[in-house]
């Protein structure tokens, strides 16, 4: 779709706004016109929960880096909350497939880590420590880790570590939560448990969520909008609104409506892959 050269001001209600964003990881790649992601145009509303699915290497993590300001686009602009992105955005919290908790810190101290780094909490950390600890404990309780703050990460199961990692991402009350395949390493039961925990956190606080996943059921269960990316070029090729009403219960995943959407997405990704293969041959 040809995008008319619309002025940047057009995007009033979008919280995340990508306009013709291209990224090459370095100058060499730029010179040879090799982009990790191409021509991203995307508007995400305030408080929206989106999911991104796509094959590995298609640029999902790259998209996360652009959204958080860890990478600057080679072409195009990214606006977050009306402001152009110029550097790392501390209104975001991130969690990944590996919980990457620090083993020498207790779970509570791990969750508190961002407050030791990000302003304004950083300079208040010593004085308000009690208050911050209480906040961290409340957060831990809300994900089912009440009373486990003094445990060390290695004393927790994989699912519990991932919950703590999500708490760490949320402790500074970010406006945007970025999750890069956070549940990929967990077993099916634990994963569904964590879906519900994430759903409840989001429904309570309504921050923006960008969830990268390989699991179509996960994306449909959790997100308001599912985007599919294609590989080489890394582009957003499908946008699908998920009209299933909230609050969604796990039961919904067995409903006709749910499975139809999952099937539809699978079909579209399959068609896209086939087209890609034809192109290669």
């Amino acid at each position, binding site marked *: 779709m040809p995008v008319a050269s619309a002025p940047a001001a057009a995007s009033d209600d979008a919280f995340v706004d990508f306009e013709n964003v291209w990224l090459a990881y370095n100058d060499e790649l730029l010179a040879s016109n090799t982009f990790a992601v191409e021509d991203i145009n995307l508007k995400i509303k305030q408080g929206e929960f989106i999911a991104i699915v796509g094959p590995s290497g298609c640029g999902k993590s790259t998209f996360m880096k652009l959204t958080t300001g860890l990478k600057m686009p080679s072409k195009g602009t990214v606006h977050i909350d009306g402001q152009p992105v110029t550097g*790392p955005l*501390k209104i975001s919290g991130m969690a990944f497939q590996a919980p990457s908790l*620090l*083993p*020498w810190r207790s779970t509570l101290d791990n969750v508190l*880590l961002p407050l030791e*780094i990000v302003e304004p909490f950083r300079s208040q950390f010593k004085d308000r420590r009690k208050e911050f600890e209480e906040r961290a404990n409340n957060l831990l309780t809300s994900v089912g880790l009440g009373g486990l703050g003094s445990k060390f990460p290695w004393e927790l199961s994989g699912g519990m570590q991932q919950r703590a990692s999500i708490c760490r991402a949320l402790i500074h009350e970010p406006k945007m939560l970025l999750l*890069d395949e956070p549940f990929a390493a967990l077993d099916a039961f634990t994963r569904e448990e964590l879906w519900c925990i994430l759903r409840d956190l989001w429904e309570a606080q309504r921050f923006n969520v960008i969830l990268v996943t390989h699991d179509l059921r996960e994306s449909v269960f959790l997100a308001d909008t599912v985007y599919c990316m294609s590989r080489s070029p890394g582009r957003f090729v499908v946008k699908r609104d998920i009209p299933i009403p909230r609050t969604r219960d796990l039961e919904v995943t067995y409903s006709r409506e749910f499975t139809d959407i999952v099937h539809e997405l699978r079909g579209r990704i399959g068609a896209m892959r086939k087209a890609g293969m034809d192109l290669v041959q």
Partner: protein
Amino acid sequence: MNKKQLERWSPALLLLAIIVIWEVIIRVFGVSEFIFPSPSRIWEQTMQHKAIILSHAWRTFWVTMAGFGIAIVVGVLLGFLIGSSRLAYAAVYPLMTAFNALPKAAFVPILVVWFGIGVGPAVLTAFLISFFPIMVNIATGLATLEPELEDVLRVLGAKRWDVLTKVGLPRSMPYFFGSLKVSITLAFVGTTVSEMTASNEGIGYLLISAGSSMQMGLAFSGLLVVGAMAMAMYELFSYIEKHTTGWAHRSTQRGG
């Protein structure tokens, strides 16, 4: 005696067995004391020259600790430098590796020219031989940061310094303590080697003078004493390692 106890006592038992076999062989074949003294003879000589051995041992000990102390300071600083800056790593590391390949004993004559016979060359040889493992281990601990964790911190506006102090240094502590126990044994090697040619005191000197006067028992007790000191220090640092960075052992024990 169950299996676990057996395992625990196995080094002592093996040592005992070696001593017994050694003693037996020497006696059965009637090997001359001037070629290879028996354990009982070494023990006799050790007792006989107790005072002398002790004073030489003390000298070797403090000289080694001085060199080792310098090695810790320099090793930590250099390790911190090259672990926290890619440029410094690229510049320093290849040179350090080349330096490490040089036999440190070869420095002794040069050090003698600069500092004369005595403490100077011994301390410096101990230092030169033992700082490398400390440096490398600190640098490794600092440099291995998972990319995800780096993103988590960088997005919060963490400065390099934050990442170093909150993640890098604590992470490198097990590596650091691990390197200390290796380094301390190297430091004893350095001191002894240097004392053999560039000192009138210390176990190295004792070894040379005992050898040249054919007092083989005394020479062997010199070896015994350095070995005992090095091993005691090794055990000490290994104890400190276990009790300061327990998380490193426990978190790997679980293994997922």
